[in-house]
């Protein structure tokens, strides 16, 4: 590899998976901030409906409407908040950044299978971001049909003016294209580029999670691509796939078709977001308990089972559409089946801690928080899965609470764990543990206050996506709680800046990291910082599983790199 690369090749159009991973990371953090800011505006409106946005929430942005958020703006806010958080924050951070950064290093490869495709994938995502951001400058604003964008509301005939929805659809199609390129790359890389000796069941569970996520991406993003194409044609060419009733002159199609296509993709999508976290959590629990992951194989198989099951349960988002009894019952049954593998690997997580030697480094704290929040998030999924309970809870804040626990809370904590854990390898320095601890506790407490109380609201009947809840008498008594959530959310948001500060500051001022600060076994810790393009001087030969911690055969230390034969170690 030549050392004389132009800045251009090195930082911008880099082919190095590590640089591309970082690019994704920064893209994701930017949108995480952006989406988080929108969340706070949503919260402001829910607590103080139609009151001027204060300056510290950038109230001047709403000068046009007298400082207040108007209904149209509110719809745009949560639509873009959901879209951005899912497709532009979590996907780039967990799959784009860590998929890229971690997979080749952990399986002992020099790079991705297709470095150019990898670069193209990032730049397609970048283009998608530009299209998405451009929609903020349209005269009628961004899309406003919810992140699910059900037609006919998301069609011309549905009554939302302007081209925001078209931009949204285009941006999402582009982002999908990027994701598909990435998915091909990750799947094939894991199949093809593993170092000698790295069998499937010697891969770290984090690779398992990322790999399974990519498989889901490969199968289901094409499905939503088809849906988006049809939506786009409906908007641009006058087809009527998703129009029916009075709005569809001369026949027309069926809005339910979109819902099916969307959720055939949409349900797996939520597992796409959580699978990397499950993998990372399984791996980190083992590292910081200094103990092999309990039931490693079973955990991997459970994740595979969930991948399979996740593709046949989409109907649970549509119980109230007038679904036939047969489908309703089948989908409930299939959905509930997921709790078996979920609780099995959950049990394995807990038993990994059992008899371990727990080191509460910051990545471990975030990881343990995932156990807490995912237990709540997962278990509340069961209410939603129940047809009768869901007749009441569907489209209420209860669902919002459920998915923030699973998505926002679990995935965010998983992301923080991953960032803190791989930071030394990515940037060569350590993050400040004190700041991380403060951030951890602040986030953990306020986040639970925010999201748990959302479920309380939902149970009390508060439906979602409403601009001014106080319109309803039955919600009026809940407004106090709404205010409380908003305070908590503001605190939550404020604490994130500690992390952001720590993240940036440590990049320049943090203590230089050792080669293997966490004493981990996996291959990425066998190379020095900065990891050169090409990663390994010599492709390692893998001998052990990823979790040989506290192996009694190893003398003098409680870890052994995967590439060191145990008999000859220590």
């Amino acid at each position, binding site marked *: 590899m030549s050392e004389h690369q132009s800045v251009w090749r090195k930082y911008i159009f880099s082919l190095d998976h590590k640089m591309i991973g970082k690019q994704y990371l920064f893209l994701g953090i930017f949108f995480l901030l952006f989406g988080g800011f929108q969340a706070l505006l949503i919260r402001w409106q829910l607590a103080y409906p139609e009151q001027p946005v204060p300056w510290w929430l950038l109230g001047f942005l709403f000068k046009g409407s007298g400082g207040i958020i108007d209904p149209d703006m509110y*719809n745009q806010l949560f639509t873009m908040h959901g879209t951005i958080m899912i497709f532009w924050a979590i996907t780039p951070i967990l799959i784009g950044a860590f998929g890229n950064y971690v997979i080749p290093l952990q399986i002992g490869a020099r790079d991705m299978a297709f470095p150019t495709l990898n670069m193209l994938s990032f730049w397609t995502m970048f283009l998608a971001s530009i299209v998405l951001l451009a929609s903020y400058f349209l005269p009628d604003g961004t899309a*406003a049909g919810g992140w699910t964008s*059900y037609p006919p*509301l998301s069609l011309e005939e549905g*009554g939302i003016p302007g081209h925001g929805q078209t931009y949204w659809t285009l941006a999402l199609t582009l982002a999908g294209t990027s994701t598909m390129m990435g998915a091909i790359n990750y799947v094939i890389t894991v199949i093809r580029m593993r170092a000698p000796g790295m069998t499937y069941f010697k891969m770290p569970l984090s690779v398992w999670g990322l790999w399974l996520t990519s498989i889901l991406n490969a199968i289901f993003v094409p499905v939503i691509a088809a849906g988006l194409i049809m939506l786009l044609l409906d908007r641009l060419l006058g087809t009527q796939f998703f129009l029916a*009733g009075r*709005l*569809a002159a001369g026949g*027309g199609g069926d*809005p*339910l078709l979109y819902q099916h296509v969307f959720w055939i993709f949409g349900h797996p999508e939520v597992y796409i977001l959580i699978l990397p976290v499950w993998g990372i959590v399984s791996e980190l629990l083992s590292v910081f*308990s200094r*103990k*092999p992951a*309990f*039931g*490693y194989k079973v955990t991997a198989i459970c994740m595979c089972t969930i991948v399979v099951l996740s593709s046949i349960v989409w109907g649970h988002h549509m119980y*109230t*559409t*007038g679904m036939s009894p047969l489908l*309703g019952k089948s989908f409930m049954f299939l959905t*509930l089946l997921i709790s*078996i*593998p979920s*609780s*099995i690997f*959950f*049990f*394995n997580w*807990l*038993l990994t801690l*059992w*008899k*371990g*030697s*727990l080191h509460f480094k910051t990545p471990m704290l975030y990881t*343990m928080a995932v*156990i*807490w929040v995912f*237990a709540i998030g997962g*278990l509340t999924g*069961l209410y939603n899965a*129940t*047809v*009768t309970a869901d*007749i*009441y*809870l*569907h*489209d209420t804040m209860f669902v919002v609470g459920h998915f923030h626990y699973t998505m926002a809370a679990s995935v965010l904590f998983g992301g923080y764990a991953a960032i803190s854990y791989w930071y030394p390898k990515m940037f060569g320095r350590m993050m400040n543990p004190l700041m991380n601890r403060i951030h951890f506790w602040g986030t953990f407490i306020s986040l639970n206050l925010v999201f748990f109380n959302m479920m*309380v609201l939902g*149970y*009390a009947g508060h439906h979602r*996506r409403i601009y001014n*809840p106080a*319109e*309803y*008498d*039955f919600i009026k008594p809940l407004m106090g709680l709404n205010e409380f959530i908003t305070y908590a959310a503001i605190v939550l948001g404020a604490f994130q800046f500690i992390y952001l500060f720590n993240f940036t500051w440590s990049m320049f001022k943090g203590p230089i990291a050792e080669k293997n600060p966490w004493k981990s076994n996996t291959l990425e810790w066998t190379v020095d910082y900065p990891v050169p393009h090409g990663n390994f001087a010599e492709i390692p030969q893998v001998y052990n599983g990823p979790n040989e*911690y506290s192996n009694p055969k190893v003398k003098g230390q409680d870890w052994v790199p995967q590439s060191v034969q145990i008999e000859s170690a220590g």
Partner: protein
Amino acid sequence: MTNLKKWLPGIWFMDPPKDISLDGYRIDNVIQYTDFVITLYFGIVVAALAFFVWKYNSRKHPKAAYEHGDKKKHLIMTVVMGMVVFLSIDVVIETMSFRDLKEAFWNFPKGKDVLRIEAMPMQYAWNFRYAGEDEEFGTDDDVVPPQNILNIPVNTPVVVQLTTYDVIHSFYLPNFRIKQDATPGMVTAIWFQATETGEYEIACAELCGNGHFKMKGYLKVQSKEDFYTWLSEQEPEVTEDDWDDWGDDEDEGVPTKWGWPWKEVK
């Protein structure tokens, strides 16, 4: 299982809207049961976490056990755990739910006693239609009350059939614990029965545009006599013959000709 509410504490400190329906308790019950078991499991998880943190932290327990957990007994243990969760939560709530669907929510009442209503939400209002004296929809004595007004008699099963004028809406009655989407191009149905008189709210639970948040209806549950008095006081709407034509003929944004011959529920 009778009313679970009596002996299981809920975990939500805000009460849901007052239940005034015949079957709402079923939904409350299944939620209560789920509350109970998941609190239990979450408690176990938290207890385990706390115990491990206390017992196995590295200061107290510097040497971890070397345990892969891949022996047969471990496999059996975890699978049994999974099955316990499945049997104690999933199977139970599934049984409850299927029973309730069969006995109540999917068991549409038939017969003379049933009040039939057609509903056609639009951006952003509720239109309701009663069959009138002859109990046939599409005749000249159909009653269409002012928008957003729905009156029903107490202790009478009510079947509402829905379709929509424009985009998807969802007919949500918090006090009855139910909702049903109204989707263009199809007629969906829902039924309920009130057990108490009073005034309640109807909400739209599906995002339908800028006015979604104030797409609110007023539900008045009256005694039977009051209801029929009220009904007879309403102006019957003269309908025209072309049923498919509803909508082209708007009067200040209020569709005049709409409705459909009553459809039997499967």
